[in-house]
């Protein structure tokens, strides 16, 4: 038999039973006899949801059964299977409603049967907010009562609402396990048809919370698929009726996980993501959550000391230090790596090597930790974004100090923290909890490996981490404005500079220096409604100054109409605005036909005749001031720096400290663009001149290229 045969057979059987039951009821009560579920405004909710028709009496129920029959098409296509599943579910609803004739109370404790609208409104709110992250429908009899209890308990611990149908109810009772709506474990009934009462919850959730109109079957299924995080755990042996009901669940978007792998294989019935065999009941939980893409919120971090931003600036002195991991002396590294979901066991934290209590007090040790993550929307570009947060995460631990990044980290753990029970695995706990909670949008699974043997650390550093860092750096250098399809807006600063919009490109990072194109991309993915939005760059207006129609549209939109057009590469024509957070300000120095750059830290005078603060008052506030531009330090060595005006060759003056910071990269750029060696030696600084005349003399002596370039104004 194939899956088709099984579902169709199950569906036919249930249909037959339903027809008999309705006929018998009509014979007994007459066609005018009222039928209804108690305490609902939605008649027979599932039938109403699918068809938009309310059923009031047995005669109408019989008519409805005729409508159900039209769903039972018998082509061997997946759609027919799903529709037969839906038909089976509707039949189950009809059978169940007959039990309520004459105000009967067909279910008694612990079983609930039909759930009132009020219960759904109450459960609906936490479902919508994600406080109830999922709904488990457990069907049948577990291999042992203990396994039933363990499974239910595992879901309960995650806040998942559990509904029970069939033998599992008796198993829980036998074990004395507490059930009830207040503990979020709801036994529905012992007949398989009582499963409809949870389907009814999903359908009414769509009607009440999704504003879906009765009869909008497609809208209903879309809602249940996207918004009702339910799944089915069906214990074998599976019969045709259960399989047919399962097809109905899959039609609503609820995957079915069963331990009856033999039957599944016999009918060739595995459907990826929808019908899944999992022989090990202990793994039902993980398999179900992965199949339904349910993420459990992590609220507390399991460590023996406090975790708060209050501890972020804490300094651990040598005398207070239990142990130190120092990347500048021995091999250390921190790394995030993307893996396949199947390669990761969520929340596995491995410590490979000696723990802190085996290390001499006050000693310098090696340490390497690798955080492995997997997620459907995870991208390798996010790895450095996560990694950069490790510094703040680990610093928030009471009695722990972290500095540096990559393979130049230094970590100190205080004696007090060690005495409180803090060990290496707790570093893993912190990283796991923070990565999972802060990056939940892209991380589905996460595990941490912590290496403390020197030989392992050496291997991880040199054979794993450094090649990754090199690859990333190479990607950064090859990432050009031309090589990407989109740029990003950043309006993080609009709270105080309401009309400013940064356009962040690979070669022009945000003027604050803190938002690179990769950061903006990650921000956009993690917070799609947030400050960084995608800007396309398809309609070029002027390649030379970097002006695009789409960029202008975006700037107009995000500045609420305050700005009409900006260029990406010019300081004279439509320059990009500045909020006030600029790391550096660049301004035209007319006498030398070049520009001076001042960084925020520089307090002295510039040859322009203005200090940094005076320049800032000209440049900030989200207005375009031709001749002045705020920018990040990193932008100085970019090939796109003032490209329209001739590029970095225009730089005639920078404070010494800034010049030293950017020298290597700037020299390289100048060499590549103009063939000039040691370009920075031609650039003046405060030790050379703070006035334009002296500067000009210096530039002439050095033969600075700006002197012979076209006039800027």
């Amino acid at each position, binding site marked *: 038999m194939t899956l088709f045969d099984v579902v169709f057979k199950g569906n036919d059987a249930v249909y037959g039973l339903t027809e008999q039951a309705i006929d018998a009821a009509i014979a007994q009560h007459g066609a005018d006899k009222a039928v209804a579920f108690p305490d609902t405004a939605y008649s027979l909710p599932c039938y109403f949801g699918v068809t938009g028709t309310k059923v009031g009496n047995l005669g109408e129920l019989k008519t409805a059964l005729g409508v159900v029959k039209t769903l039972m098409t018998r082509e061997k296509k997946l759609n027919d299977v799903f529709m037969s599943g839906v038909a089976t579910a509707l039949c189950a609803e009809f059978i169940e409603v007959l039990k309520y004739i004459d105000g009967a109370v067909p279910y008694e404790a612990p079983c609930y049967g039909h759930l009132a609208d009020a219960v759904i*409104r109450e459960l*609906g709110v936490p479902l*919508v907010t994600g406080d109830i992250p999922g709904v488990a429908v457990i069907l049948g009899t577990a291999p042992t009562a203990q396994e039933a209890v363990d499974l239910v308990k595992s879901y309960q611990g995650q806040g998942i609402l559990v509904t029970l149908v069939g033998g599992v109810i008796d198993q829980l009772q036998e074990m004395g396990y507490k059930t009830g709506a207040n503990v979020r474990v709801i036994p529905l009934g012992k007949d398989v048809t009582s499963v409809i009462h949870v389907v009814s919850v999903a359908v009414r959730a769509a009607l009440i919370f*999704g*504003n879906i109109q009765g009869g909008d079957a497609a809208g209903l299924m879309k809602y249940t698929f996207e*918004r009702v995080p339910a799944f089915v755990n069906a214990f074998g042996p599976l019969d045709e009726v259960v399989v047919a009901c399962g097809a109905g669940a899959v039609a609503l978007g609820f995957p079915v996980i069963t331990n009856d792998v033999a039957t599944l294989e016999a009918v060739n019935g595995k459907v990826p993501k929808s019908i899944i065999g999992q022989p090990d009941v202990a793994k039902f939980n993980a398999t179900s959550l992965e199949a339904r893409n349910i993420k459990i919120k992590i609220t507390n971090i399991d460590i023996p000391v406090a975790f708060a931003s209050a501890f972020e600036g804490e300094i651990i002195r040598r005398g207070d230090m239990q142990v130190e991991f120092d990347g500048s002396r021995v091999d250390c590294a921190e790394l995030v790596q993307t893996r396949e979901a199947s390669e990761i066991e969520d929340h596995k934290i491995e410590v490979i090597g000696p723990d802190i209590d085996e290390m001499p007090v006050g000693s310098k040790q090696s340490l390497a930790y690798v955080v492995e993550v997997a997620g459907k929307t995870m991208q390798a570009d996010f790895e450095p974004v996560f990694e950069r947060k490790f510094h703040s995460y680990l610093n928030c631990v009471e009695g722990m100090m972290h500095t540096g990044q990559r393979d130049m980290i230094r970590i100190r753990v205080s004696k007090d923290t060690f005495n409180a029970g803090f060990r290496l695995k707790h570093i893993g706990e912190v990283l796991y909890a923070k990565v999972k909670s802060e990056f939940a949008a892209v991380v589905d699974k996460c595990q941490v490996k912590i290496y403390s043997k020197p030989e392992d650390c050496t291997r991880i550093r040199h054979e794993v981490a450094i090649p990754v860092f090199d690859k990333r750096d190479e990607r950064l250098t090859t990432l050009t404005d031309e090589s990407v399809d989109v740029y990003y807006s950043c309006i993080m600063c609009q*709270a105080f500079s309401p009309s400013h919009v940064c356009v962040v490109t690979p070669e022009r990072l945000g003027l604050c220096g803190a938002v690179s194109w990769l950061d903006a991309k990650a921000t956009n993915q993690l917070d799609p409604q947030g400050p960084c939005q995608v800007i396309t760059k398809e309609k070029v207006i002027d390649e030379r100054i970097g002006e695009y129609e789409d960029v202008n549209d975006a700037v107009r939109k995000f500045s609420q109409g305050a700005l009409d057009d900006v260029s990406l590469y010019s300081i004279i024509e439509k320059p990009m605005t500045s909020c006030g957070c600029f790391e550096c300000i660049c301004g035209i120095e007319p006498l030398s036909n070049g520009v001076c750059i001042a960084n925020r830290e520089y307090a002295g005078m510039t040859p322009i005749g203005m200090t940094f603060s005076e320049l800032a008052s000209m440049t900030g506030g989200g207005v375009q001031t031709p001749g002045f531009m705020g920018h990040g330090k990193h932008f100085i060595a970019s090939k796109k720096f003032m490209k329209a005006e001739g590029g970095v060759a225009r730089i005639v003056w920078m404070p010494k400290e800034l010049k030293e910071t950017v020298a290597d990269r700037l020299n390289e750029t100048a060499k590549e663009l103009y063939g000039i060696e040691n370009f920075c030696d031609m650039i003046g600084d405060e030790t050379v001149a703070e006035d334009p005349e002296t500067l000009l003399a210096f530039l002439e002596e050095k033969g600075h290229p700006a002197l012979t370039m076209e006039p800027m104004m």
Partner: protein
Amino acid sequence: MPFTAKSGKFNASINTLTIGTGDKAITLGGENVLPFYTFDAPIENAPKVGIEITDGGLDAEPDCIKACYEGCTSVVDMAKKAAGFEGVDFLSLRLEGGDPNGLNKSTEELIAIVKEVAAAVDLPLVISGCKNVEKDAELLTKAAEALEGRNALILPAKEENYKTVGAAAGLAYKQVVGAESSVDINLAKQLNVLLTQLGVNPQSIAMNVGTASAGYGFEYVISTIDRVKAAALSQGDATLQMPIITPVASEVWGVKETMASEADMPEWGPVEERGIDMEIETAAADLVSGSNAVILRHPASVATISKMIKELV
């Protein structure tokens, strides 16, 4: 050359939003012109004025307000009396006693008051929380449930608790959701988008984009309201076209100009007059910037602002 006035009518308009049911229901928004620019196009729904009482009853009020409610012994008495003051379009009940850092009244106790007040008056209701986001999530969910069918405005859904408040008020019990953000157009917009994604009908959202007493960072409030309205009308930004409601009372009656006694500040004049002045000045400025409703506390301020609106629309 003859002067031809150009109409400043916009192609976009503010959403219309009804609060309450029956004859007393009020409708906010709908305009396609700048605030009070009736010469550009008619404004069908004039801004509305609400009066605020709290769960604390008379005890929580300054002396001058106590005098206005003479003879009242309970919150319900006050609600009935407030409903009769001149110019009152709606009643706002602020559940400030729920604050865990204050009186920390239980949700049950406060919901009982909500129910009593709702039964006693047929005015449209605005229920405001206690400014603690966790408590509000619980409190406002229950308030939305208790007021099912009243089409009340539930305030505030904030970034921290919008899911719970939005789902309860906007989805489960079909009330109007008040989205509160803090003087930042982008945050206001983001919250509206998030509520809409949750499934809340954009036509059932009112915004509080921030509030302050005149003189207390008030220019930020005004510039935010200005900018929100400009984006909604001139840019046709549908995510900012929700009507704005601005609670004034809760800010104004907590600043020194309204609280310092005449004995301490003889040169400032009588306390009551100052309170009314501050309330009127703040509310008038909010309204001319674009607020579609204000919530006040002193009956004299309500009457004055209501008169001002009638004169202008």
